[in-house]
């Protein structure tokens, strides 16, 4: 047995550094959001002071993760998954409502969101299942089970009325793709999304019907007139029309009113600047007013004067856009890109399937948050309330992402051991 080196020598310090920069910058921004004259950044009565406490406790969590035996995570993946899913379920019945979501568990005066932890727990479970001996991603049975693994927490979180966090679990599909699942499902998903938006954009659905019919006829007339081909084309055309027909139903009956509004506003940004479009409008105004180099640290007016709602949490990117301008936005995006690429690199160099799949889960969850969060602040996605990883104010989200990332680093630090053990 090879003598274990000190863990500090085997840690991936590049990731730690990126993590440190993002957390620190996020902390400065949280301070800036609520800044008033003569405020001290460490004052525990303001957000930045509290965030520092969260950061401090994150360091403790990191220590704990690193000290634990590396086998713990793989061994207890199902237990962790089970406990967290159970806690999520508890929240559904006993949780406190905050901002329309029933996602908070309160222990004394201390509240936290189990759903933030469900991400890494599900990642562990997915990795664990995927690393089963003889697992093949292209088997339908395995796919169904994996979808069940991510579907369960997703469903429970939907019950908490936290659509945003629930949607995060779709990020795992990208991991499945990496592990060998056919891209067909992803393409169908994208296709449905496009049809969905087209249907909402084009008032008269018969125009879409006519277009589909036209394409169908053209393809049949131009292509080979094989029976099977015609059958497939016809079936596809009918399915498309069926989807279009069902969009209205889904939009009006499945989506909640505020969700309908958010989507409508996305398609038509000027629809309701004081109502449903308020978030996005104010957010764009704040970011847009930053210009190339921004108004300077602590000098933003839009965020400071509270025009942008939820600016410490979901709309934290506005502060970057307003105070640091396009240059600052570029820096933030580059930082996240560097982190994502580093995580993918780490995932790829893992020797065990468990660690690799887990690494991809980390990358995909971070990527999903990054995309949806920034996309919503600049009006590219509907308003879905999920935080910007490591940046947004909030203990649960910071802890959740920290655990997510540092389990990977722990696994990475021991990657050679896995091989040694054979």
């Amino acid at each position, binding site marked *: 047995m090879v003598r274990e080196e000190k863990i500090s020598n085997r840690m991936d310090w590049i990731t730690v550094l990126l993590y440190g920069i993002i957390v620190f910058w996020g902390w400065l921004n949280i301070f800036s959001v609520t800044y008033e004259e003569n405020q001290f950044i460490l004052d525990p009565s303001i957000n930045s002071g509290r965030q520092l406490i969260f950061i401090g406790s994150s360091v403790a969590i990191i220590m704990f993760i690193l000290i634990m035996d590396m086998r713990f995570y793989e061994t207890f993946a199902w237990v962790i998954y089970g406990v967290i899913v159970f806690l999520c379920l508890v929240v559904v019945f006993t949780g406190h409502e905050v901002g329309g979501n029933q996602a908070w568990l309160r222990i004394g005066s201390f509240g936290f969101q189990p759903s933030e932890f469900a991400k890494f727990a599900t990642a562990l479970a997915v990795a664990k299942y995927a690393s089963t001996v003889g697992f093949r991603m*292209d088997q339908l049975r395995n796919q169904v089970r994996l979808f069940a693994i991510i579907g369960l927490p997703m469903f429970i979180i939907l019950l908490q009325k936290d659509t945003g966090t629930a949607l995060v679990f779709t990020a795992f599909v*990208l991991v499945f*793709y*990496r*592990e*060998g699942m056919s891209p067909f499902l992803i393409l169908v998903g994208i296709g449905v999304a496009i049809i969905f938006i087209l249907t909402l954009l084009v008032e008269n659905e018969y125009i879409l019907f006519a277009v589909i019919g036209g394409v169908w006829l053209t393809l049949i007339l131009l292509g080979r007139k094989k029976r099977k081909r015609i059958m497939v084309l016809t079936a596809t055309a009918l399915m498309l029309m069926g989807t279009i027909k069902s969009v209205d139903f889904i939009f009006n009956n499945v989506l909640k009113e505020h969700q309908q509004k958010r989507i409508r506003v996305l398609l038509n940004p000027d629809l309701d600047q004081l109502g449903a479009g308020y978030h996005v409008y*104010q957010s*764009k*105004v*704040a*970011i*847009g*007013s*930053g*210009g*190339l180099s921004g108004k300077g640290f602590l000098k933003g*007016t*839009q965020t*400071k*004067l*509270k*025009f942008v709602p939820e600016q410490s949490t979901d709309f934290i990117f506005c502060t970057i*856009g*307003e105070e640091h*301008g*396009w240059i600052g*936005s*570029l820096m933030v*995006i*580059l930082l*996240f*890109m560097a982190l*994502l*690429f580093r995580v*993918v690199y780490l995932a*790829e160099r893992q020797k065990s399937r468990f660690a690799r799949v887990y690494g*991809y889960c980390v*990358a*995909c969850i971070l*990527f999903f948050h*990054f*995309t949806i969060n*920034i*996309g919503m602040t*600049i*009006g*590219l996605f509907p308003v879905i309330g999920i935080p910007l990883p490591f940046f947004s104010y909030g203990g649960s989200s910071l802890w959740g992402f920290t655990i997510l990332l540092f389990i990977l680093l722990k696994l990475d630090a021991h990657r050679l051991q896995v091989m040694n053990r054979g």
Partner: protein
Amino acid sequence: MNEGRKEIIQIVFVLVAVIFLLKLFVIQVIDRSYADLADTNAIRKEILYPVRGLITDRNGKLMVYNSPEYDLLIILKEVHYLDTARFCHVFDITPEQLRQQFDQLYTDIRNKRASELQPTPFIKQLSNRDFAKIQDHIDEFEGFYIQARTTRAYASSAVANAVGYVSEITRNQLTNDTTNFYRQGDYIGQSGLEAYYENYLRGTRGVRYLLRNKDGIIKGPYKNGRYDTLSVPGQDLTTTIDLDLQEYGTFLMNGKSGSIIAIEPGTGEILAMVSGPSYDPSMLTGRNYSSNFLLISNDTNKPLFNRPLMAQYRPGSIFKIAQAMVALQEGVLTPETRIQCNRSIIGCHGSHTNEDLRGAITHSCNPYFYNVLRRMLNKGISSDPFEDTRIGLAEWDKHIRSFGLGSPLGIDLPNEKGGLVPSPAYYDRAYRGRPWKFSNIYSIAIGEGENLVVPLQMANFAAIIANRGFYYTPHLVKSVGKSGLPLPRFQEKHYTTIDPKHFEVAVEAMERVVSQGTGQYRARLRDIVVCGKTGTVQNDPLPDHSVFIAFAPKDDPKIAVSVYVESAGQGARAAASIASLMIEKYLLGETQRPIIEDYVLKGQFLY
């Protein structure tokens, strides 16, 4: 099987990053409208209204000042619930009025003249007393706010027509305002000095930029007030009015229609300018402006009609002095020239037969001045009597106009009328090309006929005689702001075309009018030599207008007066009495002739 999937995932990452950066570049760098939106979002521009300049009399006594008044503002978006019954009770309005106010508000919002998010005036011009009552209850009404501003207040009601009034700018005025200074809801001088000196009185607006948060709550100055400007108060006006004299004149004119103007001859400063009947200027401030304005403007006695400047009368006998001056200058007459009082062409009054110039003025001899005018107009320059009259009249017209007659003098008040001095061109128009000669137009000799003057011109005329041949344009403001000087054009001396030496004859004649004339005893003062001239202006079918001009003392005159009392009969009665009382009051500080005063006060001349 999974070859290249890592790269595809990485490409997706980069793709999203690139799309974000492009979109960010568009909204942050290319499209600058967001920066403007951010400013309108966060910065509230607050207008700081300047305090309007004060108006004092010549001795520094306050005539017009500012008093606080309050507007009730509404932010409709903030009104979630309104107890209308309680509201009507507190603000003392009927439910019907309240409904109308809301209807108006909704209309304005629909027409984008108001916003439901911005404070909008709801009830304007609450008085101090209303405010005291409402103050305690304003918190009960969500979305309603009180805003203080100032309104005009008057220390004396005697100066109403001279000072004018201030009211909210009309839509017309707003459209015609090329300077872009005014905004809807601003107050502007509408008449009198308030209108004439508007640019000096109004001051300069200041502006304050405030940061506000999303609820509109002010969080402090924008950039520490770097772009703020203070409002500059309007300049104060020191008028030429002697408030005591003005009030006394108003007191004398009580129950009469007409005007009194008193001028300091040496400077052209107007000591008093009374228009009767007048109105109480405080009626045209505050909440009841509209209803009061209607009341005042519909009054058949026309209290808003500023008679000293706007009422045109025929000059009557006073005009004979001007005729005499012109004739002396033209050399067709000497002070010693005697002319028979031949009453076959033109009537006369009193018993006299063959007067010289002084006597003719004293007795106001009509045939004498008929003759004088004929000498002037028909000098025999042309053998054609028509052409001869034309040449003579052109000369005469030029002289008469040099007395400030026939066109507005240019007093510092709006709407001054100019009267009429007929010129050859005027008669051409009047006779529509048919020929005219002296025999057609001789009634102008005695101040009847086509001549028209306003009382101000007559007061100025008295000042010219007092000055022996010059005048300063009569004006009401002797100092604009702290300059200590009136407007430059009021510092210019205007000479008549008459040689000053000729005026002594007029002065002596006017002295004799008062000291020797039979009816003019009412104008006599014990220690002061008053020079005057009566005029009686025909006013069929009503009694004649009583007119009197005077100045005193004879040497180094301090005051020149013209008095018009409509339908009060002979000039020697009401007008002469009032003129002498004004002189007495001004020169001695008080009047000692209760009989004359009673005579004036008891006369009822309103028809």
